[in-house]
C-alpha cells in the first residue's frame, strides 16, 4: 500500500509539471489557435536562468527565481513579436511550424551559451523528506504541486471570468470578427505568448531542484505536456491540468509495476488510445468546430 502511495506521489509531482506545460499550451491555443511547440523550451529556460542566477551570479534563491520567470516571460514576448508579429501570413499551420523552428533555435542557443552539462538548483525548503502514511515526500514535491495548482486556478479564473480572457477566446474563435469588434488581436497574441512563457518558466524553476535541467530537457517535457493537453481536451485549462496529472501517474505506475524501461512511451501510448476513443479529450467539447477549422 505504501508502495502505491509512493508511486502516486511521484506521479502527481511530475504530473503537475506536465499539467502546467499543458496549461501553457492552452493559453496560446485559446488566443491564436496555434499549438506552441516551443512551450517545453520555456520550461527549460526557466530552470536554466534560475540555476545560473543562483549559482553563477550567487543571487539569493527567491531573487533568482523571480528573475528567471521575468526574463523568460520577456523572451516569450520578444519571440512572439519576432515570429508571429513579423509573419505576413498568420495562418495557423504556418505559425505552428514557426514555433517548431523557435523551439530548435532556443535549444541550440542554450546549448551554445550554457554548454551541455546539466545544472541544478537548491531545493526551496531543504531536502529532508516528510513521512506521509509511510511514503516519503520531499518538501520540493509539495512546492511543485502547490504552485502548479495555484497557477492552474489563476489561469482558469482569468480565462473564464476576466474581460481580457474573454477577448482572448474571441480572438481564437474568429480573428477577423474579433478585430472588427475592436479587440486588439495582435496584442493579445503577444500577451498570451508571454504569459505562456511565464507559466513555463514557473514550471521550470519548481521542478529543477528535483530533476536538474539541461539544454535537452525541454523537448520531451514539451511533447508530454502537449499529450496532456490533448488528453484533457485542448483549450480547457482544467482539463489540460487534469491530463497532466493523469499522464504523470500513469507513467509512475507503469514504471513502478514493471515496465520501467518503457516509461517514456506511456505518454504517447495514452495519447493514441485517447485520440481513438475520445478525440476531443476528456473535458473538451464535441470537437466539431476544431476539426472544421484545421
Amino acid at each position, binding site marked *: 500500500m505504501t508502495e502505491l502511495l*509512493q508511486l502516486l506521489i511521484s506521479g502527481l509531482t511530475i504530473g503537475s509539471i506536465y499539467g502546467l506545460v499543458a496549461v501553457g499550451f492552452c493559453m496560446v491555443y485559446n488566443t491564436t489557435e496555434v499549438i506552441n511547440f516551443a512551450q517545453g523550451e520555456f520550461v527549460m529556460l526557466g530552470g536554466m536562468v534560475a540555476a545560473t542566477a543562483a549559482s553563477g551570479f550567487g543571487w539569493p534563491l527567491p531573487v533568482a527565481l523571480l528573475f528567471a520567470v521575468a526574463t523568460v516571460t520577456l523572451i516569450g514576448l520578444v519571440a512572439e513579436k519576432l515570429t508571429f508579429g513579423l509573419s505576413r501570413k498568420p495562418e495557423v499551420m504556418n505559425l505552428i511550424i514557426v514555433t517548431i523552428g523557435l523551439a530548435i533555435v532556443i535549444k541550440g542557443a542554450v546549448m551554445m551559451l550554457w554548454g*551541455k552539462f546539466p545544472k541544478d538548483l537548491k531545493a526551496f525548503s531543504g531536502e529532508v523528506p516528510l513521512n506521509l502514511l509511510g511514503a516519503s515526500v520531499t518538501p520540493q514535491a509539495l512546492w511543485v504541486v502547490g504552485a502548479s495548482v495555484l497557477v492552474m486556478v489563476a489561469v482558469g479564473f482569468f480565462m473564464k471570468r476576466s474581460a481580457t480572457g474573454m477577448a482572448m477566446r474571441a480572438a481564437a474563435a474568429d480573428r477577423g470578427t474579433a478585430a472588427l469588434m475592436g479587440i486588439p488581436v495582435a496584442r493579445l497574441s503577444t500577451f498570451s505568448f508571454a504569459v505562456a512563457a511565464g507559466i513555463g518558466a514557473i514550471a521550470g524553476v519548481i521542478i529543477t531542484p528535483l*530533476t536538474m535541467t*539541461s539544454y535537452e530537457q525541454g523537448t*520531451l517535457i514539451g511533447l508530454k505536456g502537449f499529450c496532456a493537453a490533448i488528453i484533457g481536451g485542448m483549450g480547457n485549462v482544467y482539463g489540460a491540468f487534469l491530463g497532466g496529472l493523469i499522464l504523470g501517474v500513469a507513467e509512475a505506475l507503469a*514504471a*513502478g509495476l514493471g515496465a*520501467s524501461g518503457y*516509461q517514456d512511451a506511456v505518454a504517447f501510448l495514452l495519447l493514441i488510445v485517447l485520440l481513438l476513443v475520445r478525440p476531443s479529450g476528456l473535458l473538451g467539447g464535441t470537437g466539431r468546430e476544431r476539426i472544421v477549422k484545421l
Partner: protein
Amino acid sequence: MVHRALKLAAAAGVALLMAGGVALAQDARPYKIGSILSLTGGGALLGERMKTTQEMMVEDINKKGGINGRPVKLIIYDAASDVTKAVAATNRLISQDEVDIISGAGNMSGLALAMKPIAVRNGVPMISNEGASGIVEPIDKSAWAFKSHLTDREVIGRAIDYWKSKGITKVAMLSDTSGFGTSARDELKLQAPGAGINVVSWEEFDMGANDLVPQLTRIRAANPEAILCWTVAPSGVVFMKNARQLGMKQILMHGFGYVVPKYMEMAGEASEGTVLVSLRFPVGKQLHDSDPTKKVILNYIAQHKAKYGSEPDVYGAEAYDGMLMAFKALEAANSFDKEKIRQALEKLQFIGTNGLYKFSPQKHYGLTKGDAVVMEWRKGDWRLLMGAETK
C-alpha cells in the same frame, strides 16, 4: 603530323607530371585518424573530455615531427549519442575521408557496437574507448575491432570481487536501456550465479529519466544490501538523490561510466559514500610509486594542465590510451596498408594511463580485471578502497 606529335608529347608530359604529382602527394600524405564522438546528447559530457585530449595529443605529436616523419590529421565527427548518426559518420570517415584508422567509437557502447560491422566490412582498424564486451567479441567477428580499456565483463567481475570482500550477497541492479546499460546487465546475469551473488531486483530506466522513485520503490521492497546503477546520463544523479530521499540505507554503486566529480557534487550529500568501480586514473595520485602507470598518469595530467589549464578526467585518459594505441600501431606498421596496421595493433604492448596493455590475436582488449579499482566518493574526492592488482 608534327602538330600531332607535339600534342601527344604534351599530353604525355602532362600525364607524367600528374603521376609525379600524385606520387609526391602520396609521399607527403598525412596519417588520417578518424574519430566519432558524442558531443551532444546523453553522452556529451564524456565526448567533450575525449575530444580535448585527442586534439591535444595530435597537436603534440605533430610538433614532435609526426609519426615516421609524416604529419597526423585528426578528423572528428559528432554522432550526437545517436546510432544512426554514428553509422552515417563512420561511412563518411571510411569512404569520403579515407582514414587509415579509427580511434573513438561514439563514447557510447551502443554506437560502438553499430560501428563495428562497418569497420569489419570495410577492413578499417577501429579502436574503441567504449565499455561493452561485444565490441571485441566474439574474436572471429572482431578482427578489425580493438578496445582501449576494460570490457564491462571485467568491471562487473571486479564489482563482484568487492561484494565478496564485504560479505555482500544480495544486490539490485538499476541499468539504463542503452547499449552500455543492457550489456552490463547481461554480464551480471551471467556472472552472478556462479559467484554466489543473488540479484534480488532488476530495474531499468530510459536515459532521459528524471524520476527513479518508482524503480527504487520496487528495489526497496526486495531488500538488497547494495544497489548498482549503470549509466552515463545525468539520471545517475537522480538515482542517488531519490534513494536517499526515500530513506534507503543501501550502499549505492555506479559503474565505470560515472566517474565524474561534477555528477557526485550535483547529488550533494546523497553521493557521500557512493562506491564506484573504475580504471586507475582518478586515483592516480594515490597510487604507489612502484605502479608503472603512475608516471604516465602524472605526465598526462601535466600536459593537459599546461594546454587547457584544467586537469583531465578518466574519460580523457581512456581517449589518451586509445590514441596512443593508434600512434603506436601506425608507427610500427610504417605503411598505409590497413592489414599491416591491424597486425601491429595485435602485437601492441605498452604502459598507458589505465594500465599495462597487452594485446594478442585472440584478445583485442589490452587490460585485465586486475586493472579495475574500487573507490568511493568521500568529502569531495575519490578514495581508493580496493586497489589494482598489477601484473
